[in-house]
């Protein structure tokens, strides 16, 4: 069974479109994350959710909106896609709620979604 899954694996779309990436974890974890990995492999956290509540919201354009219908899912919706949004987006989860306990947490990553904006 896949621990953290993402769909789709590849997404090619035109500028200006709206798209969503879905993430699900079956580990029973409380915290989920979205990361963006650019073409130079640099990884940056975008959002963190704990039990459906937003914990971290880094400097990300408001065209990006995470949605957590339940603690096993954290979807990423992107409006008005731009060329610079092309990247690999990783979802991850960890067990403990954000806070001091998170210092010891292992994050489990999904396989990534490669988004290409034309």
């Amino acid at each position, binding site marked *: 069974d896949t621990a*953290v899954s993402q769909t789709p694996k590849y997404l090619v779309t035109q500028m200006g479109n709206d798209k969503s990436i879905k993430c699900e974890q079956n580990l029973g974890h409380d915290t989920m*994350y979205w*990361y963006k990995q650019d073409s*130079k*492999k*640099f*990884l*940056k*956290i975008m959002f963190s959710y704990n039990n459906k509540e937003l914990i*971290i919201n880094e400097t990300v354009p408001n065209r990006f909106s995470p949605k957590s219908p339940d603690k096993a899912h954290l979807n990423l919706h992107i409006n008005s896609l731009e060329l610079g949004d092309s990247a690999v987006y*990783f979802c*991850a989860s960890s067990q403990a709620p954000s806070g001091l306990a*998170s*210092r*010891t*947490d*292992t*994050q489990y*990553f*999904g*396989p*990534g979604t490669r988004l290409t904006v034309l």
Partner: protein
Amino acid sequence: AQSVTQLDSHVSVSEGTPVLLRCNYSSSYSPSLFWYVQHPNKGLQLLLKYTSAATLVKGINGFEAEFKKSETSFHLTKPSAHMSDAAEYFCVAYGQNFVFGPGTRLSVLP
């Protein structure tokens, strides 16, 4: 603000020789430190982590890392490289947030 530096963007070693991937962090307090590995077209997988217990940490696949507070370093080592070790390696610090280093690509030559 915390930051993570990986001094080498690319390291190339021969199979069977030692591996050293360097990581330095800056933080106002001792963070938790992690090494993750990313194989091509895959997600990241935890290799090992330091969480203020033993300073020498052993991980999977024969990797280990030593936390040296005086040097603010957490270098990753392996005595003998294997072809399957070829991947991207990320050093990560957690103080108030997870901060990733820029990554080091490890190539293993036959």
